[in-house]
């Protein structure tokens, strides 16, 4: 339901050091992640399809995105988010 006019987002933002790595999980991977966490997809933190990075990597509502961030405590921290239509 993205009614808003599609914004042009430069590919360059993916290279910015403050933008962490986003990957779309395949269906199998997504199922595995949800099984491991023991949650329905709706319990994951949401991310909007209108998010610039989500648009760039071409994720669709319902996809699960794996975000690998730098962390001051753990070095690297993995987060999963579900793409929502809104």
């Amino acid at each position, binding site marked *: 339901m993205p009614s808003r006019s599609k914004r042009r987002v430069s590919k360059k933002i993916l290279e910015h050091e403050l933008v962490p790595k986003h990957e779309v999980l395949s269906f199998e991977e997504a199922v595995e992640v949800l099984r491991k966490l023991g949650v329905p997809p709706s319990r994951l933190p949401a991310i909007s399809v209108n998010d610039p990075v989500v648009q760039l990597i071409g994720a669709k509502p319902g996809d699960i995105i794996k975000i690998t961030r730098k962390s001051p405590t*753990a070095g690297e921290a993995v987060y999963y988010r579900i793409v929502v239509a809104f």
Partner: protein
Amino acid sequence: MSVESYILSKIKFGVLPPHEISRMARVTVTRAELYESDGTPVMGGPRDPHFGAIEPGEVCPVCGNRRDACPGHFGKIDLARPVLLPYYSDHVNAVLQATCRSCSRILLPEEQANRMRRILKTLKEKWPRLAQSFIKEVRKQAAQNSVCPHCGARQYKIRYIRPVIFYEERPEGEVRLTPIEIRDRLEKVRNEDVELLGLDPEYSRPEWMVATVLPVPPLAIRPPITLETGLKSEDDLTHALVEIIRQNERLKHYLRTSAPETMVEDAWIALQHMIAAYIDNELPNVYVLQHRGGRPLKTLAQRLKGKEGRLRGNLSGKRVNYSARTVISPDSEISINEVGVPKEIAMILTYPMRVTLENIEEARKLVLNGPYKWPGATYVIKARTGTKIDLRYHKNHKQLAESLEPGDIVERHLVDGDIVLFNRQPSLHRMSILGHRVRVMPGKTFRLNPLVCPPYNADFDGDEMNLHVPRSEEAAAEAEEILLVERNIKTPRYGGPIIGGRQDYISGAYLMTVKTRLFTKEEVLELLAKAGYKGEIPEPAILYPKEYWTGKQIVSLFLPEDFNYEGRAKINAGPLACDSYDCFNDSYIAIRDGKLLMGVFDKNAIGAEQPNNVLHIIALEYGDDKAREILDSIYKSYIRMLELRGLTLSLSDVDIPVEARREIDKLVEEAKKEIMEMIELYKQGKLEPIPGRTPEDSLEIKIINRLQELFRKAAEVAVNYMDPFNDVFIMARTGARGSETNIAQMVAMLGQQVVRGKRIHRGYRNRTLPHFKWGDLAPEAKGFVRGNFRYGLRPVEVFFHAAAGREGLVDTAVKTSQSGYMQRRLMHALSDALVMHDGTVRDAYGNLIQLRYGEDGVDPMKTYHGDPVDIDRLIEKYSRVK
């Protein structure tokens, strides 16, 4: 009577529909008068007896109960014309904007609306939060359509003025929409459209938000109070209702008599405003209902709102029993786990002790002692009959004591060893409430071991603290296992100890462990006795001509036998700095196998809030219990040490020789000369500006820097001339109290006074005080204070110092209120985040917040200042050759 119990599964909020209001009403109010001339309530008035019995002895005409059993009954006012209600009107506005003005269908093409309905359905199931923002989007999109896709009618812009006024911008001009028209439109909106606009048609049809009938609450909600004079004083709500009824009757009268349209209109608007004020008397654009005296009435919203409102004042915050409050005073002799409780208080606070075969004799003694002799009891609850016997009024305590049997409950006085909760406001972190063991004492104050001051941020200048008694075995056990002081030595905020020495403990520890101090046998015994040491005295460090022990030997007796530690002492700074054991200053702590081999104990060894100090490592590696043992023993001899030696301050401690003062004079002169040269340069326009700054700013910055340098140098001179065993200097160096800056202010000079990071510049026109010339840029004209506390300040200097001092006071006042509010909001936002058993952090709904707590799953309480392992310590530990 059987009692059925249910568990609430959900709560649904909706709009009370008019037919429901009429159905539950027991009176229709049509008269504004309260009492007839004979003093009886007016039937059909706001004091009608059908609102429920509230007078003693009165029988309710509706339910037949007296006032203790009558629940109170609602009435109603049939409004002459429908009226818009505040707050609801925001929703009315949304519906009006999104629906057609002629056919009342949602302003979206059918297919689009259907698609949105489907999306909304899934969103409501899975992401209720997102459903809210989706509804907003639906409303926005529908409002954008200027032609109805269903009937083709042209739509006009609707202007909404909070709280209750609507205008429609028609081609012929702006027209006010009356509540009647609005209600007509809302009535026609279909249920499926209502749903799409975010309302539940079953529980909140939009037209219900336009009132045609107003509920009148029962008298129990607005009780009249009888004054001593016998006069009745009515509740604010009743006053507000009287106004509404009067206005409603006036409007009815106008309609009946076909009064001119403008009069009807005005009366209608007035009624609307009164009803709005009855709901919330602080609305903008609505007139305020007032008492005769001019005081605004407290209407419905005012009862709920704010700190003393129903929610924050009565529901979130309640008053508690079994608690006590009094002044605190220090007692370094009791354990850190204890709190001294005055006998008077111990005889009021009670614990319900269940009588068992094991304690029945003890219980009997307590009952025999009665309520006025400690340790006694105040009540007995007999298990057999369930009756509560008040010992104050019971004649035969002896007989009662004999009749005790297992299962009875004795409300006994607090006794030594009971666990209680102790608290000091503001409760900023979880260590603001800790569990203590009671120690009943004479006197009227709570006694607290000064080592436990840091978590409470308490001192003894008149602070008061609260004490609460857990009233069940479970509560007491929880307090003991989780909240007990010794289990909170380490703070979960950062890896470090929050309980530990401050002030005198630190000076004392330093004076004890400093290498110039030797102790005779008598002194050693005295110190060890204070610490409660029961063991062998070690071999003296010096055997001949007299036996002497070092303080380090005494301290070592209390360290764990296999304890190793290495680190810098607090005094390890400036000329005493060194970073390995190759240290002649005694400022590097080395502990091997539980023996303090070198270095002094100061803030960095025994202090509170010093991560990775000796105390912290012991608490971490040897357990809280061991740390408590140390805090309860050797720390007492630190204090005794001070009592033996004395620690005080005299004028001579803050004085330096004449040569030193001359030296400082010279420094001042140099600095002044340089600054005057800078000013001269600036006046000639030749001053080299700092890049990006104006010449004025550059001069200011340069002067401030130069003056700061001057202060630094002067402080250095002063400190260099100080006797290292000067008591003030000891306190500053060991971290007990004060700093070298403070000493320099006493001994050398106060230095430049600043307000808002700048030299003081405000006051008179172009000058700070009339003592100076206009535009004088010299140091002493702009807040430079040459004087010191030892030799005194000039009047002008006092003024500058006061100005800078005031800024500090204002800053603390502002900072505490702002950070307090920020904290409150953060707490509420985070309060239901919880670390689950799988290590994830989730909220109350089960939404994932973090996959691992803190991303690494580490509990900061169990770390070395944030590091889960101290690798250096581990290497050291395992590479040592035995």
